[in-house]
Structures are given as structure tokens and as C-alpha cells.
């Protein structure tokens, strides 16, 4: 008889089974994420903020392996600090996305993380970049993580060009809420970050304040 000597969650990699998304509006971006970190079936952290700051007006959303994603974000944060001092001005969002992509691509066999990079710079305004598997592409909006599969239909149908900041925030919160309801690896609270020329605003929306749908 072979028996397991230790619980699954001690040997399973800690993943941020996740829902993350970012969307661009005229003058800025909105990023959103859930807050669940799981190791197998165990919820290791129910309030983790997966929106990590890379620079004053550039954030990234983490998904995949928690350690890999966090480390990439920390390394790129350091690189952007140095870079912005060297060029003497705020870095471009494209630079941040390229730095993330260079790490994701070079170490694609060893790492398992997908970061969505979004922010505002003075040349191109609000921008969202996806860096899945080491590619780099600018998109009007991007979704990621295990929960994203459940909401592709919703975002494809509901997205419209030219939404205002408030409409984008509502769109993000609704998408997160729907994904968190269906994906076992997503849940907890919703974190929101809104970046535009004048300010960078971080917000938490607690579980009971999330929008409800037909079954609640």
C-alpha cells in the first residue's frame, strides 16, 4: 500500500490561479485583479494584491506561478528605476513591457508566468501590453489567468471603443466578478488601479460590494 506522507499543498507549486485584466481608455488605463493565491486545493492567501507597481505610472498584473511573477516584477521595477535615471525622464510603457518580455522569453522554459503591463506615458497616452509566453503586443484590452477563460465571451461582447474612465472601471469590476464566481482558483476581493496623466489611484472592492448577477 503506498500512502501519501504529506498533504498535497506542501508539494504543489504556489500558483496565483487568477483573473487579471487591463483596459485602455482615452487618457489612461484601468487594471484589475482578484486576490486568491492557491497551492493545489488550499487557499494560501485570500487578499493578495496582484497589481504590482513597476514605476510611477506603469503597473503590471501578475498571473501563473506566484514566485515567478513577483520576481519578474521586482527585477523590472529595479531595471526601470535605473533606466529612468539614465534617460532623465519617466520611462515609456513600451520600455517596461519590453523588459518584462525579454525576461519571459529568455527564460520561457524555466518560468511559468504571464504579466500584463499597462500604464500611461506622455507620448502615447494609455497603453496595455500582453507578454504571454514571451510575445509583446499592444492591445486595447487584455485578460489573463485561469479565470480569463470563463469571461472571454463577456469581454468580447461588452467591449466598446471609446469608453470613459468610469465605464472602464465598471467593465473591469463586472468582468472580475463574473470570473471569480465561476473559476475555483479566483476569488476574494477585487483590486483596481486607475492610471492617467494626473494621478494613479488604487482601490479595493470587498466581496460583498462586487456586482451580483442572476444567481445572487
Amino acid at each position, binding site marked *: 500500500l503506498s500512502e501519501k506522507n504529506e498533504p498535497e499543498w506542501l508539494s504543489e507549486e504556489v500558483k496565483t490561479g487568477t483573473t487579471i485584466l487591463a483596459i485602455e481608455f482615452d487618457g489612461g488605463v484601468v487594471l484589475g485583479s482578484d486576490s486568491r493565491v492557491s497551492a493545489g486545493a488550499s487557499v494560501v492567501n485570500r487578499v493578495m494584491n496582484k497589481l504590482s507597481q513597476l514605476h510611477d505610472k506603469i503597473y503590471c498584473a501578475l498571473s501563473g506561478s506566484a514566485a515567478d511573477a513577483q520576481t519578474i516584477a521586482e527585477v523590472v521595477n529595479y531595471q526601470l528605476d535605473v*533606466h529612468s535615471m539614465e*534617460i532623465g525622464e519617466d520611462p515609456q510603457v513600451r520600455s517596461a513591457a*519590453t523588459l518584462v*518580455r525579454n525576461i519571459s522569453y529568455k527564460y520561457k522554459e524555466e518560468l511559468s508566468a504571464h504579466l500584463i503591463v499597462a500604464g500611461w506615458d*506622455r507620448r502615447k497616452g494609455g497603453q496595455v501590453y500582453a507578454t504571454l509566453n514571451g510575445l*509583446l503586443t499592444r492591445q486595447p484590452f487584455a485578460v489573463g489567468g485561469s479565470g480569463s477563460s470563463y469571461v472571454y465571451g463577456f469581454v468580447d461582447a461588452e467591449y466598446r471603443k471609446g469608453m470613459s474612465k468610469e465605464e472602464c472601471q465598471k467593465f473591469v469590476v463586472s468582468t472580475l466578478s463574473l470570473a471569480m464566481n465561476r473559476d475555483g482558483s479566483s476569488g476574494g476581493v477585487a483590486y483596481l488601479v486607475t492610471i492617467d496623466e494626473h494621478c494613479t489611484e488604487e482601490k479595493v472592492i470587498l466581496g460583498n460590494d462586487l456586482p451580483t448577477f442572476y444567481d445572487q
Partner: protein
Amino acid sequence: MSSIGTGYDLSASTFSPDGRVFQVEYAMKAVENSSTAIGIRCKDGVVFGVEKLVLSKLYEEGSNKRIFNIDRHVGMAVAGLLADARSLAEVARDEASNFRSNYGHDIPLKHLSERVAMYVHAYTLYSAVRPFGCSFILGSFDKDDGAQLYMVDPSGISYGYWGCAIGKAKQAAKTEIEKLQMKDMTCRELVKEVAKIIYIVHDEVKDKAFELELSWVGEVTNGRHELVPKDVREEAEKYAKDSLEEEDDSDEDNM
């Protein structure tokens, strides 16, 4: 301000008692012996002009270019030892290429000139190497930051300019450049003035034949650095030659 630095001028790692590094100053003299190069920044771009002295009739036309392309959007005009300048052009190209690879966009000109200047400066610190015997002017244009012009000299400093000249006739060229209202001019107007300045400062007596190399980068080229097209160059040279004849004629009238 030339003086002999006997005893303190054998290596770049030695200061003289009055605080000078003679090797660096001698390197600058190498630049002063070279023919003139100028770069001028206007409201929608940058124009380079180089007086390329032709030492032999046997040379193929257009060989030994003194204007280089560093990246799509950056041009470099040089004066001094051409071999040193070519090696620095490679350094600048590597810097621009690595920057694009790491950060995903064109290198800002100020950053590029600081990086190359740092490299040039490193060669002024040690006795095992000699300083670079060339100065160069870098220019670029992009729609967010506009036109930019920087000059790097053998000591390793970089300056930003509206107009600058390097080489044997740099003083005469600077005087002519200062007469221009470059901030209000476009590249098309400026190209003719640059050709005229090169023709003015060219010394017919000491140096015989010369080729005029002209290049520009600006709105007119959509931000790409290119040699000026043949028809524009011919028009500019004609303007330059005609202006010189006019001045000769008006000199004769005054008794």
C-alpha cells in the same frame, strides 16, 4: 593657447602642474587639422555638411564618407582621424542597437551621446591607450522631442547645440552659423545655407578640390537620417556657388 608640455605629455594618465592633460589636448589638435564639418538644428530637423577634401584625382567619388548612419533616426558627422571615427560609429551603433533590444524603442539622442561620450572619456584615463583623435556631431529628429543636436569631443564631454562646427575652419564656420535664424528655418531652406557655409569656409589656396557631403534628418524625411537627394544637393551647391560669386562681385564695386 598652445604650449609645449614637455615632461607631462607622454601619457593620458599624467596631469601637468597647471592642471591640464596634454594628451587630450593633442588629440583635439588632430581634430583641428581635419577639414570642417558642421551641423545645424532648425525647427523641423537637423542638417549636416562636411567639406571632404579630395587628396588625389584617383579617388573614387563618394569614398571615405564622413557622415554615418547610427540608427534609422540618428546621423553622425565626424572630423579628425577617420579610422578613430569609424570605430566610434560602431560603438554608437552597438549602443543604439542594444537600447532598442532592451527597451523596445528608438534611443533618445541625449542618452546616446552621453553613452558614447562616456566611452570616449574612458580612453582619456589610462596610459595604456590613447584618446580618440576625433570629434563628432550627432543629430536626430522625432515628432515628440523635435530636432536634437549634440557634439562630442576627444575629452569625452557632450554638449547640446543649435548649431556647431568642428575641424580646421570651425571659427569661421561658427561666425557664419551665428548669422542664421535657424529656429525659424525649415530643413529645405537650411540645406542651402549649410552648403553655402561650407563653400565660404573652404580655403581655395591651401586645399584644392573638395566634395560636399550633405545629409539631413527631419520632418522632410519622416524622421529617417539620409544623404540629401541628388536634386536637392545640386540646387544647394548652385545656391552656394552663386552666393559666393555675388559676394566677389560686390567686393569689386567698393573702391
